[in-house]
């Protein structure tokens, strides 16, 4: 029995010690673009860009050790269905709350298939909001539903 509990205790300890900073992202974008988005009705084209709400996605950074543990958040995307005329951007719109700090990411940056750093910080932060912008829309873009999966990755630094 002693050995059994000892093993459990060791596993628990190892699990604790191996817990790295984690990220949770909640909320996305679902937007219909139709004739109401024409610049000036018949004879005009669609608006080129479409911004999501400021708080389209809420991000949490948790499980930091609490001893000034630094991290950065990278962003990338994987397309389900896309059109080459369309360009997706993202930016951070809030600092969030928590015992840590946060910096960077306030300006729109393109989201591509390659991860790029969006922002960085120290220790736990919650309610970090990001906003998206779609550019390149026009009536030349065929009728379809364009979907991409945006991945946020937290990296210990």
């Amino acid at each position, binding site marked *: 029995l002693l050995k059994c509990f000892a093993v459990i205790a060791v596993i628990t300890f190892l699990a604790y010690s191996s817990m790295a900073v984690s*990220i949770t992202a909640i909320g996305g974008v679902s937007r219909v673009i139709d004739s109401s988005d024409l610049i000036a009705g018949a004879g005009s084209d669609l608006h080129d860009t479409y911004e999501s709400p400021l708080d389209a996605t809420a991000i949490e950074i948790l499980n930091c050790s609490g001893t000034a543990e630094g991290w950065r958040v990278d962003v990338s995307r994987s397309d389900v269905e896309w059109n080459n005329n369309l360009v997706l951007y993202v930016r951070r719109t809030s600092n969030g709350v928590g015992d840590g700090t946060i910096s960077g990411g306030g300006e729109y940056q393109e989201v591509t298939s390659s991860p790029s750093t969006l922002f960085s910080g120290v220790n736990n932060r919650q309610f970090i909001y990001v906003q998206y912008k779609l550019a390149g829309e026009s009536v030349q873009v065929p009728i379809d539903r364009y979907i991409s999966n945006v991945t946020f990755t937290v990296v210990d630094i």
Partner: protein
Amino acid sequence: VNILKKNTIKLSLFLAVFAFVGMIAVVPALASGGNSDTINVSYQNDAIAQLSVSSPSVSLHVTDYNEAGNSQGSATDASVTYSVTTNAGGTAKITGSIGSPMESTLQLLANLGSAGGMSAGETDLTDGSSHDLVSGIPNGSSTGNSISIKFVAPITANRVTSSKTLTLTLLDS
């Protein structure tokens, strides 16, 4: 021996409590997120077919009755234009109809600019049915496309007046 057993039990209880509390704390933390998370962005481009004309009405007055040798007179208006936006993929067309036939002996014809597609040229709308006026309009938007309306009336002793509504419809053919 009893002392050893007693200590063993105490240690076991301590470890059990430690393990239990530890697991309670760890499992939710591990479940709350990993080092990455994914959200979904979706933009749906719906069909767009918008057409408008620059003026809601035109008046056509046949005035060349008195010219020698004429059995009928005509009047043409080309002051109205149309604007169009479509993303139908090059299959859009414009049809025209006056809804019901013209009065006997009167004719109404229309000729629309191509808007990047192919114009059917001057088309007789007199029978009141729907006729293709432009086809193959590509994706895009254009303004100032011409609309020419021609009214033809025979020479008669009586003054003839007619009013018709020409409906232009943008369709995905």
